């Protein structure tokens, strides 16, 4: 997996976050999905499903519980793609 792929995953997450970020807060890898961006716990799972469909992966619920920041989500998606 190249650095470009990592960047693409980040861009995809930012794109999927748009409907949950009405205040258009700046998104960085350090942004807390719930704490900084204010995405509620139900919406986080909707975001995850969008990623699962785009990359044809399954992100188990317990893995989601451990993901706090956008950067951690990028890493989790990257890891699951590489395991395929």
């Amino acid at each position, binding site marked *: 997996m190249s650095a470009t792929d990592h960047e693409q995953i980040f861009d995809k997450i930012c794109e999927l976050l748009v409907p949950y970020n009405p205040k258009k807060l700046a998104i960085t890898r350090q942004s807390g999905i719930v704490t900084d961006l204010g995405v*509620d*716990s*139900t*919406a986080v*799972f*909707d975001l*995850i*499903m969008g990623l*699962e469909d785009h990359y*044809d*992966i*399954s992100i*188990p*619920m*317990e*893995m989601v*519980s451990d993901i706090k920041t956008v950067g951690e989500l990028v890493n989790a998606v990257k890891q699951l793609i590489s395991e395929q």
Partner: protein
Amino acid sequence: MDIFDKFDPMKSRLETVHKLGVDPFGVKFDDIMNATRGRIGNREIVLAGTNNYLGLTFDPDCMDASIKAIKNHGTGTTGSRIANGSYEEHVDLENALANHTNMASAIVFSTGYQTNLAAIATLAGPKDFIFIDADAHACIIDGCRLSPAPTIRFRHNSPEDLDKRLTRQGKIEDGIALVVIEGLYSMFGDRAPIAEFADVCEKHGAYLYIDEAHSFGVFGPTGCGLAEEQGVLDRVDFISGTFSKSLASIGGFCLSKHIGFEITRTAMRAYMFTASPTPSNVAAARAALDKIAEKPELRTNLAERAEQLHAGLAALGYELCADPSPVIAVRRPNEIIAASEWNWLLENGVYVNLAVPPGTPQSSSLLRISLSAAHTKEDIDHILSVFKEMSENSDELNARVAEVLAAAE
């Protein structure tokens, strides 16, 4: 650092809601007179947010059975069935539930929440996978959290999406897939397409578990729920439910067509390590089960009242979240407007539920109404007249909302 600091964001959100009037999450009734009437101060309230679907909490036979059980066997069980033994009432109700639904095994629990918590956490082991509907109730999610099995969510009410995710998972080595859905979803009141889910489960060899908490007693020719109504009860592996809705009590049950389910009595922690339901709770549910079998007219009246209210609210221009069912959810633009209207309804004698994120699908804010077979046509006319008056007073309500929001800034 204070131990409660972490609740500050929640506290400030609640404080805004409290400024609109009564705390919607801490309503105190001064009296509950019957299945459809309560009292706060001097004001009589029409209860339209109780989940008392068959209106049996004041049924004379249910009350008599409960009183008789207390007189015969006391007020409490003082322990778990594993450590302290089963009462006649527990065994009798389990047999009656199994017979009524034609299932091989029935286990009763102390609450509905504990039922799903215990059963799901135990049925799915470390080599298994759980697939749950995206709108699953908190007790299903918590059951999954306690299970060692990975949990994967599929899109709400979409057998196609479940099929896709089961296919993506492929063959599960030395394990099984447990699919968990609900019959009637508690917030929007929408129904699961159970036959289609059964098809997908059979295609993949997955076990199907349905929580019929809001549909048992309400649907099906003999009140067994939506699986029975859709003609697929015999294709469902597990049915769970609660006593606190149609069954006029408190407690829960899980049924299985597999006799092997019995072994889990000595494995389910939320069954083994908690006190069993009291004789009076169980006896009331047992009497209510007889009513479900003997009185289909309760279901008929409930369905008619749901049609009446749904049509009336739609005619008033309210956006409703699903087809008519005993749960009718009115979608509101945001939680402040919803909370303001909820207060207005209570001040005008109608109690409904305020449902807000994250407890709702699609982050929606709802005025959730749950109907009862004990509601009359006139009760529904009254509820509709209060909603009509509320919509005619929207200027007054909006002014109140603006005032509160200005004060909060």
